[in-house]
């Protein structure tokens, strides 16, 4: 027990490294704040493209979504970060991480929105057209609000996964929370910073993750009752 406390909850070492962790936390939050809206927007555009498209472009969109979803996000990140410099285009690690997250999550969010849009009955489109609404206006005012309400649970769940995935930035030495904790651990020869990073991640994400899991449970139970 003593060994455990000394190693994983070492207060002096924590006092020494907490500014580093705070800096890391800041970057993690910033990464999430930049990538999440961009991914949602880009996924939504892909889904709207799908619902306006003809048969062929729909198939193309599905293939693209599945292609993007098939990449492990780290593979995408390494590909972007390490291969573009060979073309004389050097991205900063922050930009590279945002790009990888957005490209990957365009697939995930695209599929979620697409399923939502598709679940809206055709009558809604027809009713909107009968009222003289332009297709685009009908989409924004009538179809989209209903579709989004249906996919709140998967949207929230995927947003959580995106925020969790920001930690891969540690692998291209962007000093976000996890990376800072690793650096601190190596400086202090003590894994307390790692514990601290895990605790910070948990405190930051738990309320959201708890909410997501309650919604998912309700969705599963509701689906069976229908």
């Amino acid at each position: 027990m003593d060994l455990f406390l000394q190693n994983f909850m070492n207060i002096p070492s924590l006092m020494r490294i907490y500014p580093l962790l705070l800096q890391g936390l800041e970057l993690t939050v910033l990464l999430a704040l930049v990538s999440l809206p961009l991914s949602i927007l880009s996924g939504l555009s892909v889904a709207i493209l799908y619902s306006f498209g003809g048969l062929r472009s729909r198939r193309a969109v599905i293939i693209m979504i599945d292609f993007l979803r098939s990449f492990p996000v780290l593979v995408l990140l390494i590909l972007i970060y390490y291969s573009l410099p060979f073309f004389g285009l050097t991205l900063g690690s922050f930009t590279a991480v945002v790009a990888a997250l957005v490209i990957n999550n365009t697939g995930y969010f695209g599929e979620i929105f697409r399923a939502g849009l598709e679940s809206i009955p055709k009558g809604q489109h027809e009713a909107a057209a009968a009222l003289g609404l332009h297709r685009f206006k009908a989409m924004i005012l009538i179809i989209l609000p209903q579709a989004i309400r249906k996919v709140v649970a998967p949207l929230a769940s995927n947003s959580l996964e995106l925020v969790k995935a920001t930690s891969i930035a540690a692998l291209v030495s962007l000093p976000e929370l996890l990376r800072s904790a690793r650096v601190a651990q190596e400086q202090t020869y003590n894994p307390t910073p790692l514990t601290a990073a895990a605790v910070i991640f948990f405190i930051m994400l738990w309320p959201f993750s708890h909410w997501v899991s309650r919604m998912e449970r309700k969705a599963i139970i509701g689906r069976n009752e229908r």
Partner: protein
Amino acid sequence: MKQILDNYFNVPVMVEAFPEVLRGFFVTVEVALCVIVLGVALGLAFALLRCAENRVLNFLITAYVEVFRTLPQLVIMIFIYFGLPYLGIRFSPFLATALALAAVLAAFSAEIFWATIMAVSKGQWEAASALGLSRRRTLRLVILPQAIRLAIPLVTNRSIAITKGTALGAAVSLPEALGNAQSIMAIQANPSPLTLAAAFYLAFFIPLVWLSRVLEKRYSKAY
């Protein structure tokens, strides 16, 4: 165009890198299989244990699920590989990667199985008990088959999403496809091995993603 071919699809470099990346890919597949088997089995076990309605056990399982659902996989992996040795607990890169991912999958699938068990309507329990079935037999013969059917597409999706994390093994020096490709890239000063690794990952995951689409369609209706 020539630049793209030279850097991403350089045939001599790829040929030379192929055996190493392929070996890495086998490691990737092995880890993925361990993660799925261990994670889903553990998750199902947790969900069944919750049915025993023991307070202490329920608290422990719920706490486990909440923690491992919430923490990023990479944080857990790094903690296992770089943190635990301070306690004298040392895992190989393979075990560290597999355990971290399996722990996460166990949490997610425990939650899914539990939710689907709850989703089977109360009337089924009552009907089974009216037929004289014990609680345990009801669970095994009546509830579980329905619950598992509901859980299949959800657990498949989760398993696929989490096995994509095997690439994270590169962080704990697991010699999987991506890590191997990266070291060859550094030696050859050419990123074509990365293309190769990405191609392997895609060849592995595109069919799985497609499978999850099919399963979702097939099981989307209740009985």
